[in-house]
């Protein structure tokens, strides 16, 4: 067989696998629902300026806390800003922070996990201790402390979330690395004189890729919640409106005692739905990757 036909065959095989994956995924109620909700939010985030009737800087100071009307679909906040528009613009912040923080988290976790798992020995025990330590620490208080020290900016929030969240991924990647490392083909590869870099890129990484993928998705859910939580505590970046920040302002300006439900309900519902969509996708992926619980 010549090289070209081998390549074609490989591509076909890969295509078959993707198709099979899509077929199984499509049958999963949760996965499908999650994907639909997510697509909706991505659409909102990308086309915010075209969808939102106003911008976050359009203030109608004469009409604070006005209830939902045809002019303001979801009413206005304390500065007379259109809550519906804030909500749409907030999508971008939540999405960006969630995705970037999750990527950074998984990059740190993968690096630590592979390094510790592959090299073993004292490096592994030290990294393990460190991982367990971070795993045990109360995450939100640590994020609060870090965010308070570093100051409010969207990049700091991304950094803070990742630096606190990486241990879970590191743990999983490390145990997977360990089992791959002990497999016979890696042993054989070593016996043939393959270098560490070669083994890591050729054998270890391809084996942990599905896990990395699943953890990126799952971590996004956690990162979005973390960003919202920090913003709700007043640690958000004031120059980027986010859903957590909207709830912070709502709480600060007494929306609750005044019963201004249109300020309280939408941001929380949005956070919930977006996080839920990622959770459902993660749940579906877990069901596919984890054959034990695959539906018969």
């Amino acid at each position, binding site marked *: 067989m010549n090289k070209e036909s081998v390549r074609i065959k490989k591509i076909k095989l890969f295509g078959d696998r993707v198709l099979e994956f899509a077929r*199984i995924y499509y049958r999963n109620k949760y996965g499908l629902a999650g994907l639909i909700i997510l697509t909706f939010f991505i659409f909102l985030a990308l086309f915010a300026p075209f969808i939102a009737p106003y911008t976050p800087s359009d203030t109608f100071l004469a009409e604070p806390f006005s209830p939902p009307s045809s002019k303001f679909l979801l009413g206005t906040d304390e500065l007379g800003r259109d809550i519906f528009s804030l909500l749409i613009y907030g999508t971008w912040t939540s999405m960006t922070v969630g995705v970037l923080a999750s990527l950074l988290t998984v990059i740190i976790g993968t690096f630590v996990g592979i390094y510790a798992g592959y090299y073993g020995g004292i490096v592994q025990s030290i990294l393990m201790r460190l991982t367990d330590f971070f795993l045990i620490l109360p995450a939100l208080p640590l994020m609060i402390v870090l965010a308070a020290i570093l100051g409010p900016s969207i990049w700091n929030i991304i950094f803070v979330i990742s630096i606190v969240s990486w241990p879970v991924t590191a743990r999983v990647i490390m145990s997977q690395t360990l089992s791959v490392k002990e497999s016979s083909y890696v042993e054989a590869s070593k016996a043939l004189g393959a270098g560490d870099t070669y083994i890591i890129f050729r054998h270890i990484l391809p084996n942990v890729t599905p896990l990395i993928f699943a953890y990126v998705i799952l971590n996004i859910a956690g990162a979005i919640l973390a960003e919202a939580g920090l913003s709700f505590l007043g640690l958000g970046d004031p120059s980027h409106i986010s859903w957590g920040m909207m709830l912070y302002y709502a709480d600060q300006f007494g929306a609750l005692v005044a019963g201004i439900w249109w300020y309280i309900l939408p941001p929380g519902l949005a956070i919930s739905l977006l996080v839920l969509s990622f959770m459902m996708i993660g749940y579906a992926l877990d069901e596919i990757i984890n054959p034990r619980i*695959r*539906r*018969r």
Partner: protein
Amino acid sequence: MSILEVNNLRVYYDTMRGEVKAVDGVSFKLEKGEIFSIVGESGCGKTTTSNTIMRILPPEAVIKSGSITFDGINLLEIPEKEMKKIRWKRIAMVFQNAMNALNPVKNVGSQIVDAITTHLNIPEAEAWRKVKELFELVGLDPSRLKDYPHEFSGGMRQRVFIAMALSCDPEILIADEPTTGLDVIVQRNILNLLRDLRKKLGLSIILITHDLAAVAQVSDKIAIMYAGKIVEYGNIYDIFTRPRHPYTYLLIKSFPKIGSKKERLVTIKGSPPSLINPPKGCRFHPRCPYAIEKCRIEEPPLVNINNKGLVACHLYDQLNLVI
């Protein structure tokens, strides 16, 4: 008269990837007081066969056809309530891996007592006395009744499980790979124990294994299974001296014999076929060194050879398979 008769049994698993034909037309008879072995590679349907007899199949398994007659009753037709009176009480089972089959957080004695009090109407104190007797019967120290599974060695755990299987005085004992994962001497001890128990208690035993050599010394009759079908069936002597099916022949050739010098061990090339889309014709043909065109097209029937056994091979009377 045979105590158990399996007839044309077909059990398929419904999976997302398709229908797995785990057992595809299996028939055999178990005579009273006999040790009958079912031998084959893992995934050939042995365990499914035994689990069907016990009716402990997972929900995705579908019994497509067949009957299992025990004491004049078709076990596949009676309601679960009736089956409960037979299961463990009259047909008991030893599981593949006793470590996994014993509850890790309960001491072994009380696990056996659970079985006894469920089936026999006796007080708990008496059940404990019975467990003690059972421990002695299978060669375990009765002072260890209250130990936990992880405190026993592999062979002892298997004895514990055998004691549990015998706790309600069954007529048939199914032993599914009772010696897998044990070292050779322990294996032999367990098999000898089974043989002794058969004599002492008049048990009929179905022994399921992938290890032809191990069961050779204790079995009366053997069925060789391949890819969900029985390919050869006969008494132990005939099969070992004059195998008719190439698969049986290769199996025998693939383990070393004590006493024979420097004989080259044969390995069977390839791996067992997919049971979703089994090969057409004879299921063994892709791995068979003797396969001819006919084997690829036509499925060989199970034929009777001079009342000495059954074989499913187109070439059974042409090949001269010498051990």
